[in-house]
């Protein structure tokens, strides 16, 4: 299945396709990739993100995710030419990348959802490559930047993750996930989505 076709759908049409694939899959969780302490630039600015609105063809699209109107987190998206993005690209050996730090503050959550990662494909992947990438070729990583505090919850499929600083998890495009911060501390993670150049595969 071409990723381009999937992410061109409105979110509400994408969801049943993802649930079907999820229900058919044997493994309903995340994969532990390893541990790496990235050199995080912490002196950065964050903007609030509200995941009930996705960018679709340049417009705000209501995802219809129930409870998502109360979801939100702080985010910093790195520019493509930053040294940090180069470090992440090299570490994961991917060519086109979306890279952000998400801070889920105390008392905040993100409702159960699937990732489209439209910007990784549409903004950061060359036009001539976009229609060559399969959904299964999407690389999706979460890097936890601090040790887990009690009350910090990240659910992927049927699995509740536990983590130490630097732990890296991965999951495929059809894996539902959500997160909540019931602790008193902020919870920072590095969110990475990207692709290897399809012509080199």
């Amino acid at each position: 299945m071409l990723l381009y076709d999937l992410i061109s759908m409105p979110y509400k049409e994408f969801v049943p396709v993802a649930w079907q694939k999820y229900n058919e899959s044997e493994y309903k969780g995340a994969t532990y990739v390893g541990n790496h302490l990235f050199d995080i630039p912490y002196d950065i600015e964050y903007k609030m993100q509200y995941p009930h609105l996705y960018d679709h063809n340049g417009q705000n699209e209501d995802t219809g995710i129930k409870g998502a109107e109360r979801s939100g987190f702080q985010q910093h998206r790195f520019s493509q030419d930053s040294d940090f993005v180069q470090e992440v690209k090299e570490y994961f050996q991917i060519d086109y990348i979306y890279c952000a730090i998400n801070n889920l503050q105390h008392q905040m959550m993100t409702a159960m959802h699937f990732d489209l990662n439209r910007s990784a494909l549409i903004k950061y992947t060359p036009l001539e490559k976009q229609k060559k990438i399969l959904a299964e070729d999407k690389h999706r990583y979460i890097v936890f930047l601090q040790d887990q505090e009690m009350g910090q919850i990240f659910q992927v499929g049927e699995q509740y993750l536990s983590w130490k600083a630097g732990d890296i998890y991965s999951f495929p495009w059809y894996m539902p996930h959500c997160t909540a911060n019931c602790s008193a501390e902020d919870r920072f993670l590095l969110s990475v989505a990207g692709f290897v150049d399809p012509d080199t595969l």
Partner: protein
Amino acid sequence: MISYYELATVSYDDFAIKAWEKYYACEHKGATYYGNHQFQNIPWDIEMHSTTESDAQRNAVDKYYCPPDSNIVAEVRNYFDIDYVDVHFQNLRAGMLTTLHFDVNRSLLLQCAPESQQMKFQAEDKHRYIVFLQDQQPGQIFQVGEEYVTWKAGDIMGFPWYMPHCTANCGAPDRYILSIIGLRDPDRVAT
């Protein structure tokens, strides 16, 4: 043993210090499963009071205090064999959560138990149960200590006074529970 009265009448911060101390010293850092029971007198048709002050507030639940003379309180008292009981019917709506906390349950001791008995309870005598009223849905989370609870409709979980817990509803459906706190009459226990 710790007097429940002494615990319940200090500030929450002081209570929390004692609870963390006890929690770190305990071996089982989670909930205990107490079986499954379908309660017959759940007040589904009542209007709940929301503790939400605005749509932006996420740390809140909708709740209904079940009156002492209601059928559900009688049913609960009978099922768990407890004398003084505080029962709330609660709904955690989609997008809501309750941050990590300990239960003090002052009202159980100071309002539900007779004054003559209040000084006789030990903290360990408090019965704390959660009855899940529907099957768990994806994104509905209940953490007790280090354990993420899984449930089916009717499942009953309990935990002691020093167990930190929190809950979040990252799923779409509402999540209903019966929240039960109870004490057995200390004179009846002694006999």
